[in-house]
């Protein structure tokens, strides 16, 4: 194992990690806002990937151009899911935690079934795109362009999200509702509206990730499941409720995965991620940056 191989893997790991962060941040945002873990998060990602695929297949829209469209579509989808389903799960008086887990889990199975029904279980891919198949080299380190652009989009999205939460009225309303949902009602903020917009925003972010990933991953109804667990670990590693935690968690997960693949057989690469998660929470039971 030469130094070049190590740097090469770590560089790829960093790019993948930034994408993991982008996949996970929607989950972190929704959890931080209302203490709900969306167990259908992976299926939201799957839907977004299909969105990019169909825009390409029917209208020849490149995934890069499709990304904002997919994100907008997912914004609407997320808000509607909140208003139609999640809102009612939050009204449960008995064992509310389990109700939320299993409502969103049922939604995940339902979405997977619908995807199989309407899109068939076939593996799809976007064979030609502006970025697909290209690589760039920085001093002997080769980076695939789609992943590199995806990582840059992730950094930009996190930057925009920070600005949005700190500087805009809606962002402040999000923060306030998260602090005390009862009190914001007193100053005239509609809690349900904020929650719906929060679900929209969280879903739009995973939509962005899905559109970017559609250009270099196979697309099939179960694709979300493998990324969902990584997203939960990413969020928990960074600390539930922390948007910055999801960013940092993503980078750590990407780097750990790449380093594990250097040492252990490739089929065991996830063991490294899981082991690091356990190690972190055994030492810090609230994750790295978590407040709860």
């Amino acid at each position, binding site marked *: 194992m030469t130094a070049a191989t190590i740097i090469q893997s770590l560089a790829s790991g960093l790019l993948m990690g930034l994408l993991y962060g982008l996949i996970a941040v929607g989950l972190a945002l929704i959890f931080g806002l209302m203490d709900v873990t969306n167990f259908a998060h992976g299926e939201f990602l799957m839907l977004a990937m299909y969105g990019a695929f169909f825009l390409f297949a029917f209208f020849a829209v490149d995934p890069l151009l499709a990304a904002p469209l997919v994100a907008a579509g997912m914004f609407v989808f997320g808000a509607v899911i909140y208003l139609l389903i999640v809102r009612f799960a939050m009204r449960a008086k008995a064992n509310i935690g*389990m*109700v939320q887990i299993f409502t969103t889990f*049922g939604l995940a199975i339902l979405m997977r079934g619908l995807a199989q*029904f309407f899109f*068939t279980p076939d593996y799809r891919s976007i064979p030609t795109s502006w970025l697909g198949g290209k690589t760039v080299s920085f001093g002997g380190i080769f980076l695939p362009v789609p992943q590199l652009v995806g990582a840059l989009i992730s950094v930009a999205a996190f930057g925009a999200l920070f600005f949005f939460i700190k500087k805009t009225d809606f962002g402040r309303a999000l923060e306030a509702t998260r602090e005390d949902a009862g009190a914001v009602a007193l100053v005239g903020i509609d809690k349900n509206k904020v929650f719906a917009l929060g679900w929209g925003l969280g879903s739009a972010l995973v939509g962005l990730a899905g559109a970017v990933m559609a250009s270099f991953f196979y697309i099939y109804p179960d694709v979300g499941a493998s990324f969902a*667990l990584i997203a939960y670990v990413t969020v*928990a590693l960074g600390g539930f409720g922390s948007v910055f935690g999801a960013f940092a968690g993503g980078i750590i997960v990407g780097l750990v995965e790449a380093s594990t693949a250097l040492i252990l057989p490739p089929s065991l690469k*996830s063991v490294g991620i*899981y082991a690091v998660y356990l190690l972190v*929470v055994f030492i810090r039971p609230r994750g790295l940056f978590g407040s709860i």
Partner: protein
Amino acid sequence: MDTTFAQSRRRDLILAIFLAALAAVVPFFVKDVNIQNIMVLTLMWAALSQSWNILSGYCGQISLGHALYFGLGAYTTTLLFTKFGVLPWFGMVAGGTISALIALGLGYPTFRLRGHYFVIATIVIAEIGLLLFHNWDYAGAALGIDVPVRGDSWAKFQFTRSKLPYYYFALVFCCVAWLVTWKLENSKWGFWWRAVKDNPDAAESLGVVVFNSKMGAAAISAFMTAIGGAFYAQYVSYIDPDSVMTFQFSLLMALPAVLGGIGTLWGPVLGAVILIPLTELTRNYLGGSGRGVDLILYGAVIVLISLARPEGLIGLFSRKPASKGVPQ
């Protein structure tokens, strides 16, 4: 203890004896092998969900990693039988003991975690187990192990010609799991667990040893889950990591209890009786198309029951709230 609580416990026991007797005679009238298969699976999942309910329902430590103990039970029995000729009955107890010890070992660091951090820890620990078994050549790695056919006998717990012996074992397993829960519900442990579930800090201050209560619940729960895994391995006579240790199994153990009524005596049984036939029938009749109709129906039912009956379907049967087992 007031008399109504004692009365309701006696009523539960009488109902259980009646239902068990009813279940014991059903196979004399139902000869269809597919239906018998569904009945075996229903009893098995009812017992497994009952085991899960002890740790997650009564003690409130939501585990979505019980597939680990299920898989350990299946693998221990099968490995001991195929490699050393140890009879499955001993393998079952060995698997249960190993699982209980591992649950205690894992409980030591994980029971300090709360909420989602704990749930995710249980998921990733089971996933690590799954990946290790995938790469463990001695245990057949990803290819798994065939349980060799050595002729029908109770000693080897193998029956190729009839499902009935499996059915009666599953029935006994289900009854034992129910009785253990019934007994524990009214024991010192049962009261500790509910206190830990409701408010661990308050329980601690009142002298409940929270940590030990959780450890006890984990050990009992893991032991019974592994028995179920050992039974399943004998029943299907072929195991590989994906068929006994995936996240799917962890969820299947939790779902009947959640839909039936989490932390209740009858919830897991009721949930399994509704959910397992639904799963199997939709898969048998609608799953063949490969178009996911079974998943659509299954997912929709879970969403609807969760939303319409958050306290579980058991709420339909009792006038009092779901926590009726708790003396006021």
